[in-house]
Structures are given as C-alpha cells and as structure tokens.
C-alpha cells in the first residue's frame, strides 16, 4: 500500500512541524450560525456567535443566572403603573473598529432607536431586509406591546408599553434586542449593501468579528475598547464540528478547549479523563407530552389524569436521558424559577388507579389514540423513538391502544399546531428565566388560537392567574399567583410533564473563567486558557 505508507510518513513528519503561536481559545460548537444579524434568527448557535460575542443589550443576564443587571443602560426607572421604562445609557461605549467600518461616534440613543424601530416599523428602510421577519420580536408580540420609543436626550431612551408586562426587562436581555450601530447601518444603506449587516457585523460586544469560513470556523479578536474590561482571550475561535463524538475527540486531542453540547451518555466517560472537566447545570428546558384536550375523550380531566398515572416517569428519564442527566418534571418550568411549588409532587406510577379513573370516565375497555413524535433527537428529547415506545407500552398496560406516528419535525409542528394529534412529544427552552415565558406561549387560551398551546387546553381560572402575574411587577405577588396557577395545571393535567434535562459542557482543565448559563447561551468574555 504505497500511498497509504507515504501518507502516514508525511503525517508523522508533519506532526513535529507545528508552529508556535499565541494560544487562542478554541470552542468546538455544533453548527454554523445562520448569520450574524441576530434579530433575524432563533438558534442558540447563532446567538452564541453574535449576541454573546459581538453585541450588547440595554440590560443583560448576570453570568450564570437569569437575574437582570445593567448592560448598555447604566440604570433604569419603571413607572409605578409599569407602563414606562426609562433607560439611562452608558457613556463612552465604542463600536468595533474593523477593516470594513471605522465608527466616528460612540454609542448613543440613536442606536437603540434604530435597533428596535427596524423590527417594529414596517416602513423602516431596513424592515424588509429580514425576508423571513424578526421571529422573536414577532412571537413575543413586541409590535403591539411597545407603544412608543422616544429619545429624551442622546443618553436617555423611554419605552412606553401598551400594557404592563413584568417580564419586559428580562425580555430586553434577550439576543434579539441587541444594539446595532445606526451609523454603520446608514453607511450600508447609502452603499446599497444591506446584506453586509448579516455578514460583516459591527457591535459593542466583547469580541470583534474577523472572519467566518462557512461550516468551518469563526474567528474573533478581543475588543480592546470593551466597556466591561478587555476579554482575557486575545483570540476566540469557533470550530464548527457537528458530530458530538468528534467534538469530544477534538477536545481530547487538544484541538479545542471547550466542547459544547456533549451527549449525556458520554458524560461518565468524560469524567474519568484527568485532563478534562465537565460542567453541569439545571437548564431552563422542559420536555413534555401535550395531551390534546380538544379531542374526546381527552377533554375529560379524569382521562388526562389516568394517562399521567399510567406513565412511569422515572423509567423514562433513565432510559431516554440517562441517570442523573435530567430531573423529573412536575410543573411546566424548573424549580429554579419564580413561584415554583415544591409541594406539588409528580403523579405516581399507578396503573391500577389509572384504570379505575378510566372506568369512572366510561372507558373501561380503553380507547385508541395517536402519539406524534419526531424522527431525530434534540436536547428535550434525545431518543424520540424509545420515548414514544415507552409511552405506548405504559398506555397499553391501562388499556389504551396508542399508535405512534413519526413525523418530520417541521411537518409535526405544523400538524400539532393544527391540533391533529392526540398526544405529542414537545419541549420548550426558556428564553429569559421568567415563568411567563413558559406559561403564556404554551398554556394560555390565546395560544390555543395561535396553535402553540399543544394541549389545546384553555382554563379560564388558570389564564386569569397568569395574566395577572404577567401584569404585576411585585415578585412576591407574582410568585403567589404562579403557585396557584401551577396547582390548577397539576390537577387539570393537560401535559405529561417529563423532564428538565441538565446541560453539560466539557472543557479542558486549563480553561479558566467559563460559566454556564441556565439559558443555554455561551459567553466567553471572561474565559481564558491558564
């Protein structure tokens, strides 16, 4: 095998030929960003490569928490009626100087106005540039929520809302509210090169964009003017490595220092490696099965409770996520969030009681239903086929015949939004750590109409409680309202709450200063190699 031998000898020769260079921080991530104009996109990898590196927002989440702290706004005032938010902006913040743009002024209120108005105002010259729209801005109904945005002076901006919205401040820490340079946008508009906003980004964030090789790597350098201290890693490189096994091999081989999204099943092996460390944290993820309460006999609360009693939740977690890789879900959101009620315990695995309830509901001989699930796994459902089969078996044990339908993700979502399913495997990733972000999109009556309430369950008392909590700015009162709503949720059983998966990050032991975020985002502004 002459070629093979030659190839190997070249490889051996080359092994010693590495040049000595400054050590950059290399992160193995799982996918390419969709672009760098984060307001247009929803994926976490896009946010990591833009919102977390290149941009800042008026407020931000304190590292490793969902607490809100000052960002580009030094402080803010909220009017007693909860309708007016006045932000006092930080002075002396510089936008990135790059090969393609040299800013002539510092960050001010014009940039805030531009960043919101282009998403809000359909006549804004930049509005149509996002051909598919602004997904977060639209799905969170910011268009109707924000009544007005005014520049009071170059460093003061006032937002007037149309109704009180307690999570508004936390919403403003989310990626889609990142602040762009209005001066850069004007320059692009004049040159008629609007698409460059997405490929040659300019922000105020900790890192400056250098180069992106599609599906291969993204290169950033530290922002020497960063208002919150120059990042300790002079260079930050993202190595785009879709396969999780390969990411771990890269980490072991020293080609990257941080491997994102290791699979839970690989974690025990990683822990045995002396050179590596594994960080873990409860994430703001919930996996659940939506029970379509609009389809008889699932409209009967006894039937929904019976389904919950039939399911062996613990066995599901062990088999689908792996032991210690998820906690059993009881409520729609995890225990770290406001208003979580510890006194609510999971439905026990009690097939006999389930059968009795079914009998009471007039279904002694059982009935038939469909389970919708998707083919490929994701963070909220690593093994959809196994999960669906386990549910099918549990239901069969109480006399319910379930047919599993494996449907491509996009199609499944569409059909589930149209309410075609009986049971559907779903998940939700929290965006801002506020309970409303879990409850309103997934369980409100309004969400039945728009489709993303996959249980199609509309309970007036529950709806009224979560609406009151959303419009109330007092945390204690809100917590009390949420506790009441969670009790209704549990008793009414519109979901089979399944799991809150834990999130893992594998890293080399010479990495210092990396903190996981419960929101699943990854920020390297304070991370360095020892």
């Amino acid at each position: 095998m002459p070629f093979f031998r030659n190839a190997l000898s070249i490889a051996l020769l080359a092994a010693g030929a590495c040049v000595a260079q400054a050590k950059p921080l290399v992160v193995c991530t799982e996918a390419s960003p969709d672009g760098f104009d984060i307001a247009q996109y929803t994926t976490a990898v896009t946010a990591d490569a833009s919102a977390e590196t290149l941009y800042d927002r008026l407020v931000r989440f304190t590292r490793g928490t969902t607490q809100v702290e000052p960002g580009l706004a030094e402080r803010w005032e909220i009017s007693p009626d909860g309708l007016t938010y006045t932000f006092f902006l930080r002075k002396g913040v510089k936008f990135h100087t790059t090969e393609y743009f040299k800013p002539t002024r510092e960050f001010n209120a014009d940039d805030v106005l531009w960043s919101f108005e282009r998403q809000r105002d359909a006549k804004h010259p930049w509005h149509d540039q996002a051909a598919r729209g602004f997904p977060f801005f639209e799905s969170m109904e910011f268009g109707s929520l924000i009544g007005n945005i005014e520049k009071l002076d170059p460093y003061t901006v006032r937002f007037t809302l149309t109704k009180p919205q307690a999570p508004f401040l936390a919403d403003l820490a989310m990626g889609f509210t990142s602040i762009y340079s209005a001066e850069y946008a004007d320059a692009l508009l004049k040159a008629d090169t609007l698409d460059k906003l997405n490929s040659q980004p300019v922000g105020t964030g900790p890192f400056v964009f250098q180069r992106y090789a599609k599906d291969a790597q993204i290169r950033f350098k530290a922002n020497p003017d960063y208002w919150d201290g120059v990042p300790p890693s002079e260079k930050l490189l993202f190595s785009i490595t879709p396969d999780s096994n390969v990411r771990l091999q890269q980490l072991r081989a020293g080609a990257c220092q941080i491997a994102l999204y290791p699979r839970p099943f690989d974690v025990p092996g990683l822990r045995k490696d002396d050179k590596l460390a594994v960080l873990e944290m409860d994430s703001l993820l919930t996996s659940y099965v939506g029970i379509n309460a609009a389809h008889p006999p699932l409209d009967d609360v006894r039937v929904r409770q019976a389904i919950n009693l039939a399911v062996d939740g613990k066995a599901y977690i062990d088999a689908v996520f792996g032991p210690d890789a998820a906690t059993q879900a009881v409520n729609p959101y995890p225990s770290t969030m406001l208003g979580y009620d510890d006194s609510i315990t999971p439905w026990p695995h009690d097939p006999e009681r389930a059968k009795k309830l079914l009998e009471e509901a007039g279904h002694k001989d059982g009935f038939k239903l469909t389970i919708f699930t998707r083919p490929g796994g994701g963070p909220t459902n690593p093994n959809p086929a196994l999960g669906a089969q386990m549910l099918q078996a549990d239901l069969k044990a109480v006399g319910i015949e379930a047919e599993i339908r494996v449907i491509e993700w996009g199609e499944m979502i569409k059909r589930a939004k149209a309410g075609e399913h009986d049971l559907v495997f779903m998940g939700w990733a929290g965006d801002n750590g506020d309970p409303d972000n879990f409850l309103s999109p997934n369980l409100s009556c309004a969400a039945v109409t728009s489709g993303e309430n996959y249980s199609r369950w509309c309970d007036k008392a529950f709806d009224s409680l979560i609406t009151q909590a959303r419009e109330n700015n007092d945390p204690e009162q809100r917590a009390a309202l949420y506790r009441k709503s969670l009790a209704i949720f549990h008793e009414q059983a519109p979901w089979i709450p399944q799991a809150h998966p834990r999130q893992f990050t594998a890293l080399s032991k010479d990495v210092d200063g990396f903190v996981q975020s419960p929101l699943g985002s990854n920020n390297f502004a304070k991370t360095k190699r020892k």
Partner: protein
Amino acid sequence: MLSFIVRRFGLLIPTFFGVTLLTFALIRLIPGDPVEVMMGERRVDPQMHAAAMHRLGLDKPLPQQYLDYIGKLAKGDLGESLRTRESVWHEFLTLFPATLELAIAALLFAGTLGLLAGVIAALKRGSLFDHGVMGLSLAGYSMPIFWWGLILIMFFSVSLGWTPVSGRIDLLYDVEPVTGFMLIDTLLGDEEGAFLDALRHLILPAIVLGTIPLAVIARMTRSAMLEVLREDYVRTAKAKGLSPSRVVFIHGLRNALIPVLTVFGLQVGTLLAGAVLTETIFSWPGIGKWLIESIGARDYPVVQNGILLIACLVILVNFAVDVFYGLANPRIRHQS
C-alpha cells in the same frame, strides 16, 4: 463522432429540465414552509407569515414560481439563500472547492490503490493475496461510512495522534481563502507548516470517502483483468516474447480499463453522495452539509440550485465518460 457528441449533448437538455422540475417539486412536497420551520414551536402570526411569504415570492401560484425560477436560471441568476441572504452561487463557490478537493484526494487514493490491488489479485488469482483483496474489498464496500470514519479517528487521531481529528486545517493557521482549495491556498500563503497541516487533515477523510470506490475499483479491475488476460491477443503477446510487465500493463490493463473507467464515472455520484456523511464526521465544510441544512430549513433556492449544480456536474462527468468511451471503443459509437 461529432454526431455522437451532438446526440449525447441533446440528451442533456431534457435531463437538465427534469432535474429542475424534480428539485422544484420535491422540496415543495416536504411539508412546512421556510417561515414556519424557522419559527419552530413558537407562535406564528398569520399576518407576519403572509408578509414574509410575500417578500419571499412564495405566495404566487406554483407554475408561476417555476417559470420565475427558470427565467432567472436562463439569466444565470441562482437566487439567494432565504436563510443567510447570501447568493447561492457565492455559497456554492465557497463550499464546493472543499468537496472537490476531498473527492479528488479520495479518487486518487481509490484509483491508485484499487488498480494496483486489482491487477495483482488478477495475476495471482486464487492466492492468499487475491482472497485477501476480495475479502477486504467486500468488507470495505459494506462498511458504514459513519462507523468507519469514527474508528479511524479513534485509532489514528486519538490513540496514535498521527492525524488531526477533523476540519481542513488547524485553527492556529489563519489562511486567507483565495482558491478555496486548502492545499493551494496554504502554498499561496506564507504560514510555515500550513501546507503539511492541510495535507494531514486530508488523509483520513480521503481514506474514508475513498473506501467504497476503492473496493469497487479493485473488484472491477480484477474481473476485467481476468477476462482480458484470457484473450487471444494477450496469449499472442506472451508468445511473441514480450516482457510480462508490457503484457500486463500495455496489452492487459489498457483494455481492462474501459469498464473500470465507467466505474470511475459512476463513482463521481457516489463520492458526492458519500461526501455528505464524510463531511459530517470530519466537520469538512463542503456542499453535502450545506444541502442537508438547507433542506431542514426549507431554503428553497439553495436546495433547488445546489442540487441542480451537483446534478450538472454528475451529468457532465458522465457525458465526458461517454464521449471518452466512444473515442476509445468504436462499437459504442456505432451502436448509439
């Protein structure tokens, strides 16, 4: 000969239209549109959905959309990605050199080794070597690429540390993309050691991608050689006292190459298909991964035109093989 080429070329036109129609229809048959897929489990406001579909030109009737698409193609406009807003042609040009570089390396590996192994196996028919080659090629052909790739990474990259795990070049090297071919770009740049590093990155993916073509070429060469070696003219050549190497390589292999060449042509399709998996395992930034992601995002222009460009490539390679075949073998020319 000219009429043969013209006839063959004439057949390309309906094939081309067939491909455009098929890709246009197939991607639209997959349920879910680009806006819905982007929104995922989140709320889709019907008004926003309608406005976005209008901006994308997807609210027009399908025949109209197809005519618009063909009209744009005629002007050489491949449109832009709905997701990244980059021109499809630009994205293809950025990513295709990576796939091509890998495919060429894989074909070189498979061709050289396959021909050699096939010839030796034929000459030593029934020997241990012959059985070994046939057994290994069967194993190679049946090997799941994903598994094979990971095994090689575990052994050569992780255990022995001889080759890099993935990617086209170590991220320490900041290579300016000029041609898109990493081996060439590293030579054009001034970073010491970059070329060798790029070469080391190419070895494992080329072996993985080349394994199936290698198995096919080795088996094909062996059986073609066996047939040719039985021919009268080979016996005559031997009887004339020609040297064994002349008999084997000039009289034998040259004639045996015709079926092998067909296999080479067909393998171009296999290489591009296999590239999807190989690119995923080795994080190789080529067109395979690009297309898979675009199908997931319902990025119609990328899927339609990306597949069209690949189809054109496969069609052209097979056309070239056909023509070459006709040149080499007058019987084919006359039959068609």
